[in-house]
């Protein structure tokens, strides 16, 4: 998966889970401050991302994933083989 594909999958998840307009979902957008996720919203996003990208995201990593771009980098890092 390349950066663009990962971005599109994350954008779809964010639009579905948080009910925000697709154009608000940019690489710089912060989940809590810009996209309006509360802590249960973050939990749901993480669940969907674990499913979509077939990975486990431990608690200690969640706090580091503040923006859409952070998640793209995380997925790229974890899936490179």
């Amino acid at each position, binding site marked *: 998966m390349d950066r663009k594909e990962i971005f599109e999958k994350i954008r779809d998840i964010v639009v579905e889970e948080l009910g925000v307009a697709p154009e608000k979902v940019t690489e710089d957008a912060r989940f809590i401050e810009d996209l309006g996720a*509360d*802590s*249960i919203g973050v*939990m*749901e996003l*993480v*669940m969907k991302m*674990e499913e979509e990208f077939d*990975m*486990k*995201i*431990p608690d200690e990593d969640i706090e580091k994933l503040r923006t859409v771009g952070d998640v793209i980098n995380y997925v790229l890092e974890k899936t490179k083989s």
Partner: protein
Amino acid sequence: MLKVDNGTNWALILGASSGFGAATAKKLAECGLNVFGVHLDRRATLPKVEALVEELKSFGVKVKYFNTNAADDKKREKVIREIKEITSREGGKIKVLMHSLAFGTLKPYLGERPEEDVTRQNLEMTVDIMGNSLVYWVRDVYRAGLFHEDARVFAMTSAGSHRVYPSYGPVSAAKAVLEAHVRQLAYELGGKGIRVNAIQAGITDTPALRKIPGHEQMLEWARKANPSGRLTTPEDIANAIALLSRPEAYWINGAVIRVDGGEDLI
């Protein structure tokens, strides 16, 4: 062994994968109720949930767990639609609805720095999940015609509804709201055969308690202070709920029932 049902009717447990919810699911399955469970688990904890579901099935009852956010309107509606389909196909009504959702913000109202203060979003989310969601579930299950003619609703509260613990403010508020909803629902639904009560558990070592900053001190205090000489366990709560789900408990309505070995007297 205590009997609640003969494998026809169902329990619906919100917060069914750990702590009080999981223990009650096991006890009610043992007592002959089929189990619907709603839980929110990531991949790390899913294997434990799968093992729990298998254990429930070993009692010879039907089990269906939904991994979804019980506080989200659309997701609640979807679960209730599925429950309606399953019960219209396989029979049975909801005899027990248990609210044991533990997901909230645990921090002081005034943090060390202003940016650490509790926010509007923190308070509203916590009160919504741990308090208000009871109303929506009970209402929608009722509107869907899913309640048994002699049904019980149990909402898990704590001494925090009337006591103070560090960092527990948002959850304290949610518990006070939850108890108000229990009274109102008991008033509106008592005449329809649905009895609504709050269960006030003593301090219990559950995954939810372990998220409270300072929980070690709470556990240490309760071990010493509890008049019955130990902490409350999830099984203590499950046993009480099974008893209160028996037909003989029909006249108990709108109460906050302490199941704590006498801890709240101290």
